[in-house]
């Protein structure tokens, strides 16, 4: 297990370096100049040049990258041009809001979506299955922006029971209600669908028929054989969805004015804050890789046939 984890961590390092190079190159290839963005429209060429020098942007591309990656390996993510202080500080001040939103959504999805999906799959063709499938289609057809604004109009404007904007973490959960719903409903629908189809697939396998032939009860078949095998695609997808949410739920953060990493990234890209964009991408890549690693480990516990290699 340890060997497997170390090997994956090494791959992670390669991925991080690759992402750092790609983001570094793409940002510098994209039009726009951070110095000009900082100084505004009426800046003189001398002012822009002085600012470029101050920010180290007038050095050769490879020199800039070498300095960046050396610092990165030392754990120094650089200084944000826009904020004027360490990128690490900026990112870690924004990450908790995104993490709170993502993890609460993830927990609710886990509690609600997976049981619905599994039951719907086990009771294929039943009223419950029909209801679950219809709900999935409905939820997946609604755009996130539309739902987020609709929730605002219903709960804040019409009913006036929830705040339209703001975020106070877990100290005041009413600020999280609408964002969590808007953040999680599509993933929830996807997980229900995945749970249902996973269960249906497993139920048609020969070994399930064998278990019935051996005289096992339906309950035992479902809990001891079918459910466990249906879980593998679900956990994989679940991990990917959490990673996606952690990378920043830009729309949700913008609509509900949540100080998360997504809205920060959009702002940083708009201002061509090279260090902050690069660092955010590296941090999200690391989170993505870590979650994928956890999912792979969890899958080996679910199915021993999966080798850790």
């Amino acid at each position: 297990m340890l060997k497997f984890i170390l090997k994956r961590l090494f791959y992670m390092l390669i991925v991080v370096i690759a992402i750092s190079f790609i983001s570094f190159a793409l940002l510098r290839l994209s039009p726009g100049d951070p110095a000009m963005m900082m100084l505004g429209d009426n800046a003189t060429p001398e002012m822009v040049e002085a600012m470029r020098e101050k920010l180290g942007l007038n050095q050769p591309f490879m020199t800039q990258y070498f300095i960046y990656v050396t610092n990165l390996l030392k754990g120094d993510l650089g200084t944000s041009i826009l904020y004027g202080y360490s990128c690490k500080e900026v990112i870690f001040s924004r990450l908790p809001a995104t993490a709170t939103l993502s993890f609460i959504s993830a927990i609710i999805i886990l509690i609600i979506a997976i049981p619905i999906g599994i039951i719907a799959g086990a009771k294929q063709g039943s009223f419950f299955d029909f209801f679950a499938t219809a709900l999935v289609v409905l939820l997946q057809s609604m755009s996130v922006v539309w739902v987020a604004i609709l929730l605002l109009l219903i709960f804040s404007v019409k009913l006036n029971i929830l705040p339209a904007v703001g975020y106070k973490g877990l100290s005041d959960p009413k600020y999280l209600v609408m964002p969590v719903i808007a953040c999680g409903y599509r993933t929830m629908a996807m997980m229900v669908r995945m749970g249902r189809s996973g269960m249906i697939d497993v139920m048609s396998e020969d070994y399930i028929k064998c278990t019935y032939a051996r005289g096992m009860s339906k309950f035992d078949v479902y809990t001891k054989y079918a459910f466990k095998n249906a879980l593998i695609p679900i956990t994989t997808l679940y991990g990917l969805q959490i990673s996606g949410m952690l990378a920043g739920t830009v729309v949700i953060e913008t609509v509900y004015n949540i100080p998360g990493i997504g809205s920060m990234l959009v702002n940083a890209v708009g201002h061509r804050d090279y260090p902050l964009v690069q660092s955010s991408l590296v941090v999200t890549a690391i989170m993505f890789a870590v979650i994928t690693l956890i999912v792979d480990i969890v899958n080996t516990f679910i199915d021993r046939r999966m080798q850790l290699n």
Partner: protein
Amino acid sequence: MKTSIKKLFNVSLTALTALSLAACSGGGTAPSGGGTSGGGTSGGGDAPKGKIVVNVNEAESTLTSLDFYKTTIHSEAQFAEMIYDPIINGDRDGNFWPCLAKTWELSDDGLTGTLTLEEGVKFHDGTDCNADDVVTTLNWIAADINGNAPLIASKWLNLVGAEKIDDYTVKINMSYPLHTFEQALSGTYVFSDEDFDKYGDQMWAQKVLNGTGPYKFVDWIDGQYTEYKINEDYWAGRHSNIDEVKIWYITEANTIVSSLLAGDIDTCAAINTDLVPMLEGNEDLTTELRLIDNLNYIQFKCGPGDTFEDINMRKAVMHGFNCENILNLYHGGTILGAACTEGDIGCVDDLEHYKYDPELAKQYLAEAGYNGETIHMYSTKAYTNEMTSVQGDLAKIGMNVEIHPVDSAEFGSVRTNGEYDMFYGFNAVTYSDLMAVLVDRVKRDIHSHGFVDEEINAWIEEADKISDPNERAPLMQKVYRKMYDLYGPICGTVQKAGYYCTRKGLEGITMTKGGKFYFRDMYVDEDVWKK
């Protein structure tokens, strides 16, 4: 099998615990000023009894730094105004009045300024504000104007430094005369020399926000709001009856309107056209239509060898599109004659916009020998409607215009590098003075139009040295007239109108011509304010 299920259960339990713990850490960013937010019955509805709490919003982007001198973003200037006092006050419409300086004089040669400071001014920490502080602030700006103070750099281009004459008199030395003297004074926010000695220019990053202004800094939640409380000991007497203010940084149009309706915020600028009906008829809100956008203009790249070097091409464009069509997309507005807005220093009022005449435009196009080549037109994404309207009209006269809505950063680089044929520009009009536009965009050609007219440049150069608006106006008028006659390089198009909205009873908000809010002087009419 049992062992596997047990392991799975354990892993799931561990994962859930980890998720929950991670989620709890989110509370770390919870606003420390919880419960003080104002107004509504929901989100901001926990206003302390007996206190007047106002939640305002007017944000083009979120506040990114407490080091307000470092950027040219509106949110930062708005923030500085609350906590710090400028050397002199201004309404951003060309009127100035005393603040820290009770008098200010500029020598005849425009090289020396003399300030007489108010006595008895105190910083929030109770220390005196005097000449030492003003001198420290000005010398810090002068030491590295581009690096230290982009916020005010373009106004203090000629600043050499400042000297203390006595405790309440300061002499400012300038290297050459420049028209911006009063504007620069009104944008220079004075900080404490003691704080500067102690923290250097890291004081803002360390949240040492010790101004002399009417509000004290309470908190900044990055991505959400800044919070202030009234400075009870303000040197000029309590500035407002408002006790606490939160300036929110909400940028999503639907959210702004929803928050306003829900009572979470109390102001809203430049409401999207389609959202106005939601606010109409609301008895708690005042919705007003007013000119709210900046000077809109078209700039041609018209240097030697460029498509628009030929004046007939420029004439074809300016007679070939209908400004009414642009205004119809919004709430109307004003069609501009010259490249300036009404009431600006030196703006020529007797010029009408080029007549929309497609036949005449076709004639000019033929005279120019236009052969259908693609004309590349740029602007920011926010001006896509305007570009689409121009493109549609010009297509009718046979001009092949390709529009490029890009983000602000790309727009900046396209203009600087001259990678356009024409662009749809806009410029904030502050102090009712477009002198900086004439200097930078016409004479210095920072946006690479390539057009040179010696006479225009000479007028601009002369006007740039004159601080008195009345003396400067005739020269600026000459520039506007000649640019109008030459159809470039800059031609005015429109100034759009828009709705802005405030809660009834909230008064005294300063609004610039471009529709930007400043909240320093706001107060509440307590008979009307029902919150």
